[in-house]
């Protein structure tokens, strides 16, 4: 099989080895001096992609999370002008943020097809429910703009808020069920969903505090502090439940050093964020809330590893695709990812600062 693979890979092997001249070229049984097609360009490449998959998930939770937060805080504002400000803050960025979810799904499919298949088919209804919630979240503001009359706008508002609330709840539950291997209708999974709502409220308030001014900003700063406390309380409750139920022997994982660092880090960031909010350093505060989301991604990664789908004991090394495919994705894909980072820097620099109440002139 290796020999057959070697034969057919000659055409690309030259390309691949040119791209990576430093790779070890010691073939097992074959003297051909080409890049060995059944070796990863470096040994930890599967782990690297595992990190990348969860990195895209963390990016999604951080970025679209604050969109959800905007959608939920939207429900608390009655004033039409304030609502328009929220929508103007949300308008130019949400679509790009949501693409991180597609990036997560396709990266998981590309690197760990078996895990992707198991995750989504085991959570069939949940995944489709989340998708439907996302659909409503996305189109409601678009439709709202199209007509002036009151009833139409109220209906679109309701859709928007419902979509923004259900999306993090369902997605969080999905992730919880995945990580703890407890199934959809279990306390840890649902608590994860609720926790994600609290986190989205936190990041959303931070984002809105940057985008607005005056009373609205003060209100959001206050709300954000409550939400942070709520999120930290949620984390504590979730940890307590996990210690009590101990699904798949998770307590030993939870007592590890990196896990402890993550939990302590979250508490420090949360309290630090509240302090920053009180000092009215909105940008730094918002950055700290995004840090909370990143820590949540790390939490998921540490709990999962070395498995990628605990419910069926599927490990990273079992589920990873073959070296050729992964090497190719690495060599071609990483530069693209750097580019994507560039797009986001550009996007947020174009739409930096506060929104005027009339929006971005769009």
């Amino acid at each position, binding site marked *: 099989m290796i020999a057959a693979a070697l034969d057919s890979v000659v055409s690309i092997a030259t390309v691949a080895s040119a791209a990576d001249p430093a790779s070890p070229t010691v073939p097992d049984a074959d003297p051909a001096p080409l890049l060995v097609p059944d070796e990863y360009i470096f040994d930890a490449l599967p782990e690297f992609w595992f990190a990348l998959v969860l990195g895209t998930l963390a990016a999604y939770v951080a970025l679209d999370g604050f969109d959800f937060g905007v959608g939920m805080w939207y429900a608390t504002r009655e004033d039409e002008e304030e609502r328009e400000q929220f929508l103007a803050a949300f308008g130019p*960025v949400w679509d790009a943020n949501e693409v991180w979810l597609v990036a997560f799904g396709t990266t998981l499919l590309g690197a760990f097809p078996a895990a992707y298949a198991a995750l989504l088919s085991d959570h069939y209804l949940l995944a489709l429910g989340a998708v439907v919630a996302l659909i409503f979240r996305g189109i409601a503001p*678009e439709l709202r703009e199209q007509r002036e009359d009151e009833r139409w706008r109220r209906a679109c508002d309701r859709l928007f808020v419902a979509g923004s609330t259900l999306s993090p709840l369902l997605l969080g539950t999905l992730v919880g069920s995945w990580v703890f291997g407890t199934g959809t209708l279990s306390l840890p999974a649902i608590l994860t969903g609720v926790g994600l709502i609290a986190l989205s409220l936190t990041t959303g308030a931070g984002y809105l505090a940057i985008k607005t001014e005056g009373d609205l900003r003060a209100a959001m700063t206050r709300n954000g502090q409550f939400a942070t406390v709520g999120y930290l309380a949620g984390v504590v409750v979730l940890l307590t439940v996990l210690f009590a139920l101990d699904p798949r022997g998770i307590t030993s994982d939870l007592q590890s050093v990196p896990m402890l660092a993550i939990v302590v880090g979250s508490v420090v960031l949360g309290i630090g964020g509240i302090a920053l909010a009180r000092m009215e350093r909105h940008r730094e505060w918002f950055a700290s809330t995004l840090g909370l989301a990143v820590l949540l991604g790390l939490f998921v990664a540490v709990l999962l590893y070395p498995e990628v789908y605990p419910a069926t004991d599927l490990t990273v090394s079992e589920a990873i695709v073959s070296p050729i*495919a992964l090497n190719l994705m690495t060599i071609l894909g990483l530069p693209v990812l750097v580019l994507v980072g560039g797009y986001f820097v550009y996007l947020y620099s174009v739409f930096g600062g506060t929104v005027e109440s009339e929006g971005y002139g769009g």
Partner: protein
Amino acid sequence: MQFGWTISVHILFAALSIGLAPFIVYFTYREVYGGAERYTHLREFWLKVFAIGFVMGTVTGIPMSFQFGTNWPRFAEVSGELIGGPLAFEAKMAFFLEAVFLGVLLFGKERVSDRQYVLSSVLVGVGAWLSGFWILVVNAWMQTPRGYEMVQRNGMEVAQLTDPAAAFLNPRFPWMYVHMMNASVIAVALIVAGVSAFFLWRERESEAWLSALRVAVVILLITAPFQAVHGDAYGRHVEETQPQKFAAMEAHYETGSADLHLFAIPKEPSAITDPRADNLWTISLPGLGSYLASGDFDEPVQGLDEYEETPPVAIVFWSFRFMVGLGFLFIGLALWGGLMAWRRSLTDSDRYLQAMMLASPLGFAALLTGWYVTEIGRQPWVVQGVLRTENAVSTGLTSAQATTTLAGFVILYVLLLGAFLYVVKLLVETELARVEGQEVDPSVWSRVPILGRAATDGGEAE
């Protein structure tokens, strides 16, 4: 089924993005560098359509990226190594580009320089075309899989990539890509032409919409005949690489010299479900099927009788006829329009404007039926020769669940389509008021809904 339905709707919006992108780039460019006011109107109008279409494309596209897992886990697992990479590239290269710069295009006119603004419109277009690129890389592989071998992994037989060049530089790909992109442009050109014709029909003096109609007609003049020539060559390629699909397209049951059925009309109802030469009235050119496939009138073409399992011939046969027939209609419309434009009398004839209005949705109809030909023509395989459709679906999925969610998605997507058309209708109404209001009566703004609705009901063929 659910997948087939969601993809049908998604492909409409995806094609809208792909086809509309060049128009947006053109109008934006002309506006920014020519400074002509009429292009501002055109850009604003079509950008709104593009934006709502893109949002629809995103929200209908996200289910797709999950449905491989929710409904086709076996497919995802067996061919994940081959399809996952290109799909991941689609997300990273194409969707991000499109989504980020659409944000700039929609909301950033006052915030970025002219040059950046034009560049944004180009990048949105590039993103749309790249997403088509990667998805068709996947689809071309599903039609003519290469560069893989089947290996055991975790107790399952899965496809392992062995030769990326063979797998991803698939010979089918350039055919599909050119055909699909061109089809998208044709479909959108017809929409642009139809909408322009509608406004011109109401208001002959609108310079902006005359420009739009002219641009659309020119594009149709280039793309529609090209599609016919290219499609013919594409058919030959299909005959070589997927002979059973070609046989189904032509309802060619027995191996031998193949006749080409130019037109086919069923003689009796059963012919609709079972299209055979002896129960159809056809205008057929003897041997031409063979000629098209191989360049020789007597060359035998493989018939369906050589295959134990065949695609549902009737759907493929009629879809193909429908698509080709529409294609020739489009060429006719393009030539008609070209002639009138050449005589500078594009707006003189009510009949031409009405014809264009009626034809506006047909481009998308042709595109969809073409898609059905290629996808249903591959059945019973989901990956030709590798994985059968019935084996690709979820094993844990009960039929009750599948039926319920299918029904849910049908209703939801009908609503989405309805919402989209409704928004377009509102946009048209507003624009109509502007077009007529300029010359006729400025106070028409206050009467927008009534005036617009009456007009839309009377004219639009939606």
